[in-house]
Each structure stands twice: as structure tokens, then as C-alpha cells.
């Protein structure tokens, strides 16, 4: 595929590097992403902080196959840092670990991942404690802006008395330290204790979705196709859903991955029932639902008509509500797993708003709303519902945005580049996996810390 980011290509050339350096222009780094055949975790991960979190972090870093170290090596090359603030009760206690973290930054290798660990400020006992915990989020967001060479910084917020070593936080930490989260930066991720995944003799990390059946709507092209591929890579049996008119692309993808194709208009009144029947008859179960299908019909609100408004709300939001209702109903229990995981696609437009997108922003903010509201239902059955809010992602759709607007969309983020469909897919695959059992009701941004709505 020819690159649609000529500036990014220029910056990575020797001449371009000198030119952009001399002019003080943005210099986006090549992000390290998960590739087949290369280990997900390698190298040294610095663990900072006192208290139970640090001890548990060292064990978790070892468990995923990296090497925990206590001091930044002089020769550099750190692949990650876990900075544990989980015991802070007063803002005055932040400085030691924060400054140690600062001292280690020059030792980071390319595409390094910094994770701060802190208890969720919303669940603090008193003002001083909440100030300290909230402070860590502020520190992390600022650090994300300061990261160089494609590095990221995110905050893992322990909720509901969770220990870092519990299944939920352990899974989230692994994701945030992994190249799978290459385009996630500046984000706080609240995580509860979660539930340990049933042990698998084949090794969980290799195929976290082995034996599970996952459906993805809007799967024929773009981000949906990347999600279908990633879920299949992670071991899931996939059901690709798209409009009948997208059948040719869907057919090729499904035949390549193995699985089944279902031609379905998700706004049809019987869409949920047909989806359930397909899963029941063909696969006998359903463990993961990814509501990816979405449309834009942009107009300034002054020029908006009912057709454009209603179509966007119907596809992007109402279809998710209607399908969830069918899948969560009592009579679907023979097929739908107790620990069902639902992932909806939101957008940073739904967080920050975007000129010309009142309908789209309403629909995507709606997805975040329904995700939060449905979380208790899923929690009661041991599952989860989450959303992913992509920022600027390089797709066929964004390639059609006028050049200047496109350049702004790309560069106005800490990573100074657009993400790839695979970046969104990796976040969805994590949230769909048993490793995300501690994450529920949350919307995770995959935006390279876009300035929009930050």
C-alpha cells in the first residue's frame, strides 16, 4: 500500500531528518508495533516506587518475559518503566518517584512505554489522598507530551481495592507495556480486580481468544477488517458482519481468516435476532461482540437534515443498543457466554466535538454513555462492556480529507502522526480478551494523545 503520509516518510529519510531538525518541525517517530515472529516483550523494564505495587510489578514484568531492573542502566535501552504511586496519601509524597522517573527518561529506548500505577482518585478517602492520586494523572499526561522517539505514558488506576497483581490490573499492565498499545498515550485506564482467566494448557498469551467466538460489525474494510484480523490472530473464531453490498470484500477476508460472513443491515429490526441465530446455529456460542460499524454524514448543524441526522444515530448508536438488548436477554443464554465482552467504537469527536459533526459526535458520545450505563449488567455476569475512541487513523476514509486538515489531524498529537487501523484493533482485541476482565464501562482513547479533547 502506498504511504498516505508523505511528510512522515520525509522525516524518516536522512535528508528530511536534517531539514526538519534545522527548521524545528515535528519529527514523528516510527512506532514499534507487535509483529509476528518478534517477541512481544523483551529487554529491561525499570520498576520505581515503594510499597506493594512495586514488588508486584517486578513479578508481573518477569512473568511476561521482560527483565525488571531497579536502576536505569547507563547505556540506556529501557523498553519500559513502571512507576508505582499506589501508596501515596499526600501530594508531598509524589516527588521521590516522580524525580526518579525523570532521571530514567534519558535511558529509554525507542517506543518505550511508561506506566504509572496509582489508586483511582475517585475512590480516595480524603482531600489530600485524592489530590495526590489526581496529581499522578496530571503528571502522566504531561509526561506523555514530553516523551520522545515514539514513547508513550499511561496511568493505570487501581479501583475497588484491586492489587496490581490481581488478574485485572495484571492484564492491563501487560497491554500498556506492550507494542500492542503503541498508539495509546496520555490515558488513564481504571481497572478493577477482575477475574483470573481459566487456565489454558496452550498458554494464554499466545492465543488469548482461543476457543472463543467473536462477531465484528462493519468488518469488510478499514478498521473493522483490522479488528477481524486481530481477533482471528488472537485465536477467535470470527463472524464478519457487513451490509450485503460489502459482501465481496467480506467474503475474501473471511475466507482468508476462516469463519463465517453474515450479510446484515444492523439497523434492521431483526438484526440482533439474526446475529444471535447465526452464532447459535453455526458456532454454538458467542463470547465477543465488537460494534464497529459506523457512518459519517457531516453537515453544519444549520444545514443538517433529518435523513443525515437519523441515519448516523441509527447506525452508530441505536443499533448497538438494540443488538445488546437481544444478546443480553434471558433467552440468549444458551449461546451468549456469561462473561460476554462487548466493545463499541466511539470517537474522539464524541469527546471533543468536531465542526460539522454534531450528529456524529452525538452518536459517539452516545456510545460512551451506553457503555457506562450497561457496565453493571455485564459486571453481574462476569463480563464487560467497553468502548474505544480512535483519534486520527490512516484509513481510506481519512485519506480523502483535504491535505491541510489531514496534516493537522495527524500532527496535533503527542506522537505527531496518525494511527493505523491495527492500533485500534489491538486495543479492541485487548478489551475483548479475558486479560481485560478488570476493565468495564470505560472508554479507552487510541489517539496518540491527540490535542483534541485531551
Amino acid at each position, binding site marked *: 500500500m502506498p504511504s498516505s503520509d508523505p511528510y512522515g516518510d520525509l522525516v524518516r529519510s536522512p535528508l528530511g531528518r536534517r531539514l526538519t531538525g534545522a527548521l524545528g518541525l515535528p519529527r514523528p517517530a516510527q512506532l514499534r508495533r507487535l509483529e509476528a515472529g518478534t517477541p512481544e516483550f523483551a529487554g529491561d523494564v525499570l520498576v520505581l516506587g515503594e510499597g506493594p505495587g512495586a514488588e508486584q510489578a517486578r513479578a508481573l514484568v518477569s512473568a511476561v518475559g521482560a527483565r525488571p531492573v531497579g536502576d536505569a542502566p547507563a547505556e540506556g535501552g529501557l523498553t519500559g518503566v513502571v512507576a508505582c504511586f499506589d501508596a501515596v496519601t499526600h501530594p508531598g509524597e509524589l516527588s521521590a518517584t516522580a524525580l526518579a522517573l525523570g532521571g530514567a527518561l534519558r535511558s529509554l529506548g525507542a517506543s518505550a512505554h511508561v506506566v504509572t500505577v496509582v489508586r483511582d482518585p475517585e475512590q480516595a478517602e480524603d482531600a489530600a489522598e485524592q489530590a495526590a492520586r489526581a496529581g499522578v494523572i496530571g503528571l502522566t499526561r504531561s509526561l506523555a507530551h514530553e516523551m520522545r522517539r515514539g514513547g508513550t505514558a499511561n496511568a493505570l488506576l487501581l479501583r475497588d481495592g484491586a492489587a496490581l497483581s490481581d488478574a485485572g490490573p495484571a492484564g492491563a499492565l501487560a497491554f500498556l507495556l506492550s507494542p500492542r498499545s503503541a498508539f495509546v498515550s496520555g490515558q488513564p485506564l481504571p481497572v478493577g480486580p477482575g477475574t483470573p482467566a481459566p487456565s489454558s494448557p496452550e498458554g494464554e498469551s499466545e492465543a488469548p481468544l482461543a476457543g472463543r467466538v467473536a462477531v465484528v460489525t462493519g468488518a469488510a474494510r478499514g478498521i473493522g477488517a483490522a479488528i477481524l484480523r486481530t481477533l482471528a490472530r488472537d485465536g477467535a473464531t470470527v463472524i464478519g458482519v457487513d451490509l*450485503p*453490498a*460489502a*459482501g*465481496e470484500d*467480506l*467474503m*475474501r477476508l*473471511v*475466507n*482468508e481468516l*476462516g*469463519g*463465517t*460472513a453474515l*450479510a*446484515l*443491515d444492523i439497523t*434492521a429490526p431483526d438484526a440482533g435476532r439474526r446475529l444471535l441465530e447465526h452464532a447459535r*446455529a*453455526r*458456532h*454454538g456460542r458467542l463470547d465477543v461482540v465488537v460494534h464497529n460499524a459506523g457512518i459519517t454524514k457531516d453537515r453544519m448543524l444549520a444545514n443538517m437534515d433529518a435523513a443525515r441526522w437519523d441515519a448516523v444515530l441509527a447506525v452508530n448508536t441505536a443499533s448497538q443498543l438494540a443488538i445488546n438488548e437481544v444478546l443480553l436477554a434471558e433467552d440468549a443464554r444458551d449461546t451468549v457466554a456469561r462473561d460476554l465482552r462487548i466493545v463499541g467504537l466511539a470517537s474522539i469527536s464524541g469527546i471533543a466535538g468536531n465542526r460539522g459533526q454534531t450528529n456524529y459526535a452525538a452518536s459517539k458520545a452516545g456510545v460512551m454513555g451506553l457503555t457506562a450505563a450497561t457496565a453493571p449488567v455485564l459486571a453481574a455476569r462476569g463480563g464487560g462492556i467497553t468502548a474505544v475512541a480512535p483519534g486520527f487513523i490512516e484509513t481510506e476514509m481519512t485519506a480523502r480529507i483535504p491535505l491541510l486538515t489531514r496534516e493537522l489531524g495527524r500532527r496535533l498529537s503527542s506522537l505527531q502522526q496518525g494511527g493505523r487501523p491495527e492500533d485500534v484493533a489491538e486495543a479492541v482485541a485487548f478489551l475483548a480478551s479475558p486479560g481485560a476482565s478488570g476493565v468495564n464501562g470505560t472508554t479507552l482513547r487510541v489517539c496518540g494523545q491527540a490535542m483534541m479533547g485531551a
Partner: protein
Amino acid sequence: MSTEPRTPATDRPALAGGALRPAVVVGSNRIPFARAHTAYREVTNQEMLTAAIDGLVARFGLQGERLGQVTAGAVLKHPRDFNLTRECVMGSALSSETPAADVQVACATGMEAIGTLADKIRLGRIDSAIGGGVDSISDSPVSYTDGARRVLFDLNAAKTLKDRVRAVSRLRPGHLVPQPAGAGEPRTGMSMGEHQALTTHEWGITRQAQDELAAASHQRLAAAYDAGVMDDLVTPFRGLTRDNNLRPDSSVEKLAKLKPAFGRHLGDEATMTAGNSTPLTDGASAVLLSSEGWAAERGLPVLAEVVDVENAAVDFVDGRDGLLMAPVYAVPRLLDRHGLTLQDLDFVEIHEAFAGTVLATLAAWEDESFCRERLGLSGALGSVDRAKLNVHGSSLAAGHPFAATGGRVVGLLSQTLHQAGEGSLGLVSVCAAGGQGIVALLRGR
């Protein structure tokens, strides 16, 4: 070696002493049909049939599956495609260990494929199969004249320069005129349309009745697409999502404006136009057949049972019958075998080669003396309720890629019967060149 039978007789296939078992239709897939030299101008038969099979594979999750057999064919087939179906299987997502065969019974090719595969399943020789067909006018072979071929063969055999010069010197300009494959009957030199024009005239079928049938075909197929009836029957191909011959706004008034295209020698009594005749079309279809057990093991649906198939042929050269009238004979024989009448059928699919073909067929069954004298019945076979006839449109709207029509109709009718409910009965009738026809009885599941 033990002589003890390892399998009790009741569990054995019919071939080995067990009972016959039903052959069922699991589902079907086709690509949208395209008028010749339009959307699929650059596409080969092999690409189209592979796409039809791959759509079926994706719909039912059959990637890497070894099926019992795939049988299909093309009427206009290039000699290089001698192993067309096998090549399509090897290029598809099916296991390459799936055997394949080509068949050819003109416009009834798909019906022959489906009928013989159903019999193999019933006998227990195979458990699963795909039957279908493909045709392309756009990819049809063009051959040299016999004279040119003779020269080329002699040139190839020539050993000396003198022999070569002698061979080439026999070449005449007329030899180089290409010979496109045609739809003409070799024994009469007449096109299919001209043959049908005679039959249409003989049965007194009016222009009005033909145009009404054509308009209804377009309107019904358009409504079927709009209602999602085609969602599980068609997979888009090369940017085409619906049959491009389909004219949803077709009406009797618009069709009445067309000039006759066939039977012009009949003067004012010529009634067949481009509007009430099917156009030359490119397309492919595939139907997944299996035993009930094979479908159940995979959680696949069962839409209908292929109850029986009947082939017939008429002597249109020296005899009294029209070229496309063989189904008129086949249907009463098929129904009689099962103790059924036309009135027992819930749906009737008569392939619309021409509107006149369908109407002449219906007229013949309503004609008491014809049914007595020619079909050997005690009276008229009876009328077909128009509300049961081609309920979602037929070839006048969809088009007719010769070998692909049988799969299109069997797939559509199976879904229709499944929705109508268990035990509903449907008839398929497909006429073919050479005075042939194949009809089938399907029962809904």
C-alpha cells in the same frame, strides 16, 4: 481377514444395502448477473464461478473443507477451460482435495449438476456437494473456420519448407473470418428466439400477456432486493451489487413501445421484443447440497429437500413440438411419479427464457386436447395460479447466464420454501437448447 460385516445394513449407504436418504439444499450463492459486455467484460468464466463458490464458502464457513464433489459447467466454454470446475475449486477457499466435474446440458446445465449430485447424496456415495454453473458471453471463445484450421494443422505437420509454403498458399481471406460461438440450433440454423417466435405464435400468446409477465418479473425482483430477500443469495462482485439488467421501473406501457426482435416474418403478428426476451448475460451460481447429517454436524441450515428430477427432450426438428417445450412433457411425468397435481404446488418457477416460453408452457397444460393427445393425460393438466409463479421474478429481470440459471432458481426457491414452512412444495422448470428440459420437485424444510 474377517468376513463379519462391520456396519449393520441399516447404517450403510443405499449403495451398500441401506435405505435412501434425503438430499437437502443448505444454501446457495451467486454473483449479480450482468448483461453481456458490461460489468464483467474483462472477467473470465473461471473467475466468476470461483467467486460464486467462495461466497458460498464464506457464508457457511467451509474454508479448507473437503466436499464430496463440485459439479458445474459452462455452455460457452473455452477449450482451455477443459477442467473449468476443478480449476475453480483449486482456486477457491475449499480444500484442493475436493473432486470436481464439468457437465453441460445447455441452459439446463445447472439443473443437471444439482440433480445428479442430489442422487449421489441420496445413494450415500457422497455427503456434500456444490452444484452450479457459469456463463459469459463476454468471455466466449471465438474459433477459426474449418478451412483455416486445416491449413494450420497441415502447417504444423509440414516437414519441409516446400510443404510449409504449400500449406500457407491454401489460406484464403475468408478463412480468417472469426466464428463466434452462437445460440443457433445446428440442425435448423435458426436462433432460439426465432424458434420461440414460432411457438409463441402457434399458441396465440399475445404481446400484452408477454409484456405483463416481463414487467411483473422486473417489479418482483426489485421488490425482493429491497426486502432483503437476496441478502443470503447474492454476493457482490466487481462492484456490482444487483443484476444490472434489472429495471425496477419497468412497466407494460414502456415495454409496449419496443419493436419486435424475433419472428419479424410474422409481420403484425410478431410479438417478441428485447423487453420480453432475456438478454445475453454473464454470471455464475453455486448451490450447497448435503445429507441431513452433514448439515447437522456443522450447524448448517436445511432449506429444502431435492425430491426428484426429470429430464425430457422433444423432436423440434421433424416433430411437432417447439424447441423449448420439453418441460411441458417432463412436469406431468414428475408429478405423476409422486401422485401430485399442479394444484398441490405452493411455488412454481418456470425459467423465463422468453415470456412466450412461460406462457406457451402454461397454455399447453391448460389445453385439454394437447394434454390428451400429446401428453397422454386424461384431461388438461390444469392452470398455475399466477400468484405462485416466479414470485420473486425470474430470468427476464435477472438475466440468463445459461449454465448459471439452474443454480439461481434452485437457491431462490429453496429459501422461499424454507420461509413458507416445512412440507411446502415447489417446482423448477428449465428449458434448454437442443429441445431439452430439466424439471425438479423441491420440498421445504
